[in-house]
C-alpha cells in the first residue's frame, strides 16, 4: 500500500509552510495535519514530511517521538485523555481513569495509551490540561470535559460504543 497525501491536504500544507521564513518550522503543523487525516503518523508520513520540508526523516522522527500527542499507531475512535496531574488527582482523576479502563477491559496498571481491541477507544493519562479549576478534567477527542463524574464517564462510554 503506497502512501499518498490528497492534493487538497497537500495544498493546505504548502500554504502552512509559507507561514514561516524557514519551512522546517512547519514540521509540527504538518504532523498535526497528517495525524488528523490518517489517524496516526506512519513511517511513510515521516518520510513524506521530511521530503516536503527538505529534511532527513530522523529530523522529523525526533519530533514524533518527543511529543506525546503524536502517535505511531492507529488510535481508537474515541480518545479519552484523563488529566493525571495534581489538581485533577486531588479531585479523583486516578479513580476516573481506572473507571474508564475497567469498563473497557484495559489494564489499570499501564500508564500510556491503550486502545481497545475493537478500535473504539483509546484511554491514557496525560499531564495537566490547564483546566485545574474544574478538576477532574478529561479530553474526549478535541473536547474538554470538566468536573467529570462517574456518570459523565458513563456517557462518554455509551456514546463511544455506538459511534461508527
Amino acid at each position, binding site marked *: 500500500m503506497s502512501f499518498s497525501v490528497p492534493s487538497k491536504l497537500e495544498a493546505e500544507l504548502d500554504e502552512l509552510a509559507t507561514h514561516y521564513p524557514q519551512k522546517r518550522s512547519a514540521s509540527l503543523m504538518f504532523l498535526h495535519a497528517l495525524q488528523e487525516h490518517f489517524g496516526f503518523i506512519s513511517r511513510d508520513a*515521516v518520510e513524506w514530511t521530511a521530503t516536503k520540508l527538505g*529534511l*532527513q*526523516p*530522523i*529530523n522529523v*522522527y*525526533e519530533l514524533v*517521538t*518527543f511529543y506525546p500527542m503524536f502517535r505511531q499507531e492507529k488510535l481508537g475512535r474515541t480518545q479519552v485523555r484523563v488529566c493525571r496531574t495534581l489538581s485533577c488527582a486531588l479531585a479523583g482523576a486516578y479513580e476516573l481513569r481506572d473507571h474508564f479502563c475497567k469498563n473497557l477491559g484495559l489494564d489499570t496498571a499501564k500508564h500510556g495509551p491503550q486502545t481497545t481491541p475493537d478500535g473504539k477507544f483509546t484511554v491514557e493519562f496525560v499531564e495537566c490540561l490547564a483546566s485545574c479549576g474544574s478538576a477532574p478534567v478529561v479530553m474526549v477527542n478535541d473536547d474538554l470535559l470538566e468536573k467529570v463524574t462517574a456518570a459523565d464517564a458513563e456517557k462518554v462510554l455509551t456514546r463511544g460504543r455506538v459511534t461508527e
Partner: protein
Amino acid sequence: MSNVATTAPAPAAPPPVEKLKIKVDGREIEVPKLMPDWQGRLQPTTMLQACQIAGAEVPHYCYHPKLPVAGNCRMCLVEFGTPMMGPDRKPVLNPDGTPKIAKSVLPYEPGTPRGAIACATPISPGMEIYPGSAATQQMREAVLESLLINHPLDCPICDQAGECKLQEYSVEHGQANSRFVETKVHKPKAVDLGPRIVLDDERCILCTRCIRFSRDIAGDDALGIVNRGSYNTIAAWKEGAFDNNYTLNTVDLCPVGALTSRDFRFKMRVWFLKETRSVCTSCSTGCNITIGSREDVIHRYEPRDNDAVNAAWMCDAGRLNYKWVGRPDRLKEVRRRNADGTSDRIPWETAIREITARLSNAVSGSVAVVASARQTTEELHLLKKLANRFGAITDSVPRTGEADRLLVSADRNPNSNGARLTGIAYTEMGIRLPEIAEGIRSGSIRTLVVFGEDVTQHGIGADLLARLETLVVSDILPNPTTAAAHYLLPGCAHAEKRGTYINGKGRLQRFLKAVEPHGDARPEWEFLRELVTAVTAQAVPATLEGLFNEMSDGIPAFGGVRWAGIGDLGVNVTI
C-alpha cells in the same frame, strides 16, 4: 619571498591582541579577549579556554574545540566570581586595595555557589574562576554520579576502556559508590547505526558530539535523539542509515564507548597499541593520522589534529585503507627473472650490482622511468637523479576520483606535488606515458624503471613490456607489471618507512615508521640510494634527513626547509 616555507599562512604583522586579566584558582593570568571558536572565528574567550591557558584542567564531555558548543553535559561547571560593583558602578575594594570579588551564588539561596559552564561562558575583566575549588569539585561529582546511574558500568568488556572519559573522570573526580538504588533505564544495545558504526545506547551520555559532527561538519543530518527525558536515545532513521564518508570520526569523538567502529570493535585493548605519527595516502589532502599498531600489525588509523590540513577529521575510506599493508600476498622477495620465464630469489647486493651493470650500458635516451605519486618525495628525488643520468623520460600516473566539500580531493595520489616539484611529473600527470609507450614500441626505449604503478593499466601493456631489454620494477603488491619484471624489488608501504609527501595545497608533511617491512622488502629510498650511488658515482647522503636536506637545497620552492623543521604538522612549500 614567495618561496619561504612557513608553518602557517600567517600574515606578516599580526594585529596586537587585546588581553584581559583574570584569576584562575588564585593565580593571575593574562588571556586574549578574543579567541577562535570552533570555526576559527574570533569570539569572546571562554572560561574553559582561559583555564586551559592557565594550565588548569576543566573536565568536559560535550565540549569539543572543533564543534559548535552545546553546553549539555554540565561537566565543566565551575565556581566563579566577578568584581563587586558599588552603587557608583565602580569596583568595591578590599581594605588592601584589591577589588572585592562577588562569588556567583544562587539568587534564591545566597549561601549556595552557582556555577557556570566553562565551555560557553565568556570571561570578563577581573573575573575569578575556581576550577579547583571544593564547590566546583562537588558539582563535577554530582554530574558524574548522574551520568553513571543509568550507565551499565561494563568497563571490563567495553572497547573504549582506556580511552573513556567517563571511566577516567570517575576515577579522578567521582565518588566511590553511588547512592542510586533504583532500577536502571534500559536502552538498545549493539544498534547498527551505519555500515561502519555500532551504537550502544546504554553507554551513551547524550553529549550530542556525534550529532553535531554529522550535521555541522559532515553536512549529513543523519543522527538524532528520539524519545524524551531520561529515555532519550541516539538514533538514525533506519538501521544502517548513518552512512556518509565521515562516520568513523564520531567514534573518535564519542567520549565514552557508545559508538564503536565495526572494524576495530573488540579487536584490541587500546593500551597495547603503539602510536605512530603518519599521513593518510589515499588522496592528496594528506590528512594527518596516528597509526595504531601492535607487533608489526596495523590495527587502526585515527586522525591527528592539524588545522592546516584536516582539523581533527579524516574520511572513512582513508581510515579503513590500511589492510593492504598486511596482505599475505605482499611482495617479500628480491627476484630476478630468467629467460625461461622462471625467476630466482636473489640477494639485494646481487640485484643492485646487476641492475647497475645493465643500466651502465644503457645509452642516453633509451631509458624511461615511471614513478608513482604515492612514493615519498625523497624517493622521487632519487629516481629523478637516476633519470637525469640517462636523460630519461619520466612521468607518473594520475589517479582521480570525486572530491567532496570537506576533505576528500579529486586527486587520489598523496604526493602529486612531490612528483611535480622533483621534476618527475608535469602539471598534467601522465602526459608523457604515451610517449614512453611509443618509445618502447619503436624500440628507442630499451630500459624501463617502474616504481609503484602497474603500467599495464596505463597504456604500456604486457606486450610492450615484453619488448624491453630491462624492466626494473619495485612494488608492494603483485600485478601484471611486477610479473613481467626482470628485476623485482620489494618496497615498503608508507607505514613501514619514513618520508615526506606534499599535499594538494603544498603542505609538506613527514611521516614516521610504524611497522617493519615484509621479508626482504626495504624502504625504497635505501636501495635507490645504493643504485643511484653506483650508477652515477655521486655521493648521496646516507640518512633520510641528509637526503631530504640535499633535496631541499636543490628545490627553491622548499625555501631551504630542513627535515627537522618540518615538525609534526608540516610546512607550506610553493606549488
